[in-house]
């Protein structure tokens, strides 16, 4: 899991330029990324529950935050997650057209297209972030997405890019 084996990412490059002390080499092969999931309670959260009911196994990498609608997920929540050291973030909701609230996931879709561009701009590897649609009947898809995302993030190593150790003064516009 080093940079020689073709896993050359923008993220790694930035870290080297900035002289970050933690090298990917220092992470063991069985390193598990930490992934935060924002799941809409009508579709994806139900889909994740269905994965459980069907006893579908997936890595223990995810922590799910239930939101009423994927449209509730403020991009600042995602940034905060990266700041707090999550290695990946998944925002998941109902399929377009199926939103319980009619239009919420359309906002999600537009917002996060932009968000992905922003992440590229600030030098975050966009592979750490994903938006997808998982319905309440798609337990297997939840399993698949979590597994894929874990496998995709593992070679990228821990997220250092936005990580902030003294967070308190940041993210001023929200949560007051």
């Amino acid at each position: 899991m080093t940079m020689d084996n073709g896993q050359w990412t923008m993220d790694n490059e930035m870290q080297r330029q900035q002289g970050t002390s933690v090298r990917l080499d220092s992470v063991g092969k069985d390193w598990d990324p930490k992934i935060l999931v924002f799941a809409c309670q009508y579709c994806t959260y139900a889909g994740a529950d269905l994965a459980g009911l069907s006893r579908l196994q997936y890595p223990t990498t995810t922590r799910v935050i239930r939101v009423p609608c994927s449209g509730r997920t403020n991009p600042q929540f995602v940034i905060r997650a990266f700041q707090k050291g999550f290695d990946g973030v998944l925002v998941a909701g109902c399929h377009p057209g199926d939103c319980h609230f009619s239009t919420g996931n359309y906002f999600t879709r537009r917002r996060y297209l932009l968000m992905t561009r922003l992440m590229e701009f600030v030098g975050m590897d966009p592979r750490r972030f994903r938006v997808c649609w998982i319905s309440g009947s798609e337990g297997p898809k939840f399993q698949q997405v979590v597994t894929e995302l874990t496998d995709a993030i593992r070679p990228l190593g821990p997220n250092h890019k936005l990580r902030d150790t003294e967070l308190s003064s940041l993210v001023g516009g929200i949560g007051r």
Partner: protein
Amino acid sequence: MKKVGVFVCHCGTNIAQTVNCEQLAEAAKTLPGVAYSTEYKYMCSDPGQTMIKKAIEEHNLDRVVVAACSPRMHEATFRKCVNGAGLNPYLLEIANIREQCSWVHSDKTKATAKAEDLIRMAVAKALKNEKLTPSVIPIHKRALVIGGGIAGIQAALDIADTGYQVDLVEREPSIGGKMAQIDKTFPTMDCSACILTPKMVDAAQHPNITIIAYSEVEKVEGYVGNFDVTIRRKATCVDPVKCTGCGLCSQKCPSKTDSEFECNMSQRPAIYSPFPQAIPNKPVIDQEACRYFKTGKCKICQKICASDAVNFEDQDELVTIRYGAIVVATGYSLYDYNQYGEYGYGQYPDVISGLDFERLVNASGPTMGKIKRPSDGQEPKTVVFIKCVGSRDANRGHDYCSRACCMYTAKHATMVRDKIKDSQAVVFYMDIRTPGKNYEEFYLRAVEEYGVTYVRGRVSRIYMESGNLIVQGEDTILGTQILVVADMVVLATAMEAQPDAAEFARKIGITFDQNNFFNEAHPKLRPVETFSAGIYLAGACQGPKDIPDSVAQAGAAAAKVVALLSKDEMATEPIVAEVNTNHCSGCGFCVPVCPYKAISLKTLTERVHGSVAWGPAGKEITRQVAEVNKGLCQGCGACTVNCRSGALDLLGFTNEQILAEVDSL
């Protein structure tokens, strides 16, 4: 100082086999804010719940976290439980360590670590939880049924029978809908009018039903329990109070136009009732057809009317009425087969639709019930029926099956064989679908007793040859081409949404599917509700349906309405958006984002203290701020993300709460 209690459930072995519950309970004790923590085999059981209540009292807990199954499973149970111990139910949080942890992982160490995190998140959120109280909205005890077909009539009758006032709005001059045009009903061959018209009379005479005919819904404002509906009463030019319904005006009217009710196969006067049994049985003037309105001369009807009921000055009138609940029963329309080039683009008069056939065979129809083909009035000997015209045809029509066509085609074919001596009925079909009580038997009777010929295959072309219609198709069972010389062809055209269905749905605030049929809240478990509380669906506006299904759905919708109206007031879910007016800049960006039109701008007048840039201190200023209507807000939170100044927040899922969850890890 907030005191959180953490209760870890084993769920028998469901959780305990992959998660070390004792360790979890111990670890939870070290979390900030946690004052008490324990574990138990079945937290949702009676002893488990008693344990929680006791702990709340003994340890003065003011927040509770239950680490158990999904909140979708038992959140309501535990909310009730903590409420029993005097805690506001919204001070509870659930950590989902079953569906999203123990059941999906097998490594006990890792699963326990994850469960610990999940509890940590729940505790962090719980510390930010605030008491939420459902607000109460009054229920206005009057129902509106939109659409006076069989579904609307049935819904109105069922609601009215329980004692509530119902208004039945119909855009045509009479209620009755499509069923009034139908001759007989499958599978019993009951005369449609004989079973429908008594219901129409019941509705008209019911003390709790007001029929508002020749009217359309113009605007719907408000929310469940309190809809303010603006109805446009179209000008009828006939005073309904003075008119006795004698019908003399219609007899003497010199202007004639095609009768919609008779599928344009006969003419009606400009002052008309659509059919003899119409309800209300008061004529209206069709201004587009009326000679007076076109030329300024005539007024024969006015001169002849003994009760002086005709009033050419009549204008459309808008009335706004408040309703507690709305049933949408706007019905369907039929696919226009003129789009089928191979069936003659509607150029052959003897190629007709199923509904045309209903009028042809109806005793009060244009031919007095004698089946005569439109072109020359001859009795057709060979009648070909083609099914799935516009249904199950993604290229030119709709993907879906229209459900009723197999049955009514069998009915039509039976009637041809029954009414015309030495006749032949040939049905071209793709599949035969008879899912209903006595439906299969009905179809078999058509084949076995009435000798209807069924040919499996589609018709590729209809053309004229020496005055005859030649129907060319394929018999896919025999694998041969066949030609049928037909005297008349009847097309089973697809049921489709009303042409203005999408526009109507937007007007009243419900959603519709790719075919413009209105969406039910859940395809299986909430088939008559919409996503908008207080608005229900009945009949074919929700999807193709036959009469029994429409009637059943109407009854179900009525039951929902009655359940709603039976309460004086209802509690609304307190998870709604809230505006901090101090932060709100009044930019109005949240207004169009809201799918429920729950946000509006209001003007705030306040006294400014201290000196401000825009005026002297102590002056009163007015500014715009957003306002959330708690009755309309469904709590999606779309507005909160859109708010530039962070003034909007979603109670129960506040920015603080979600960020606390993120930060806890």
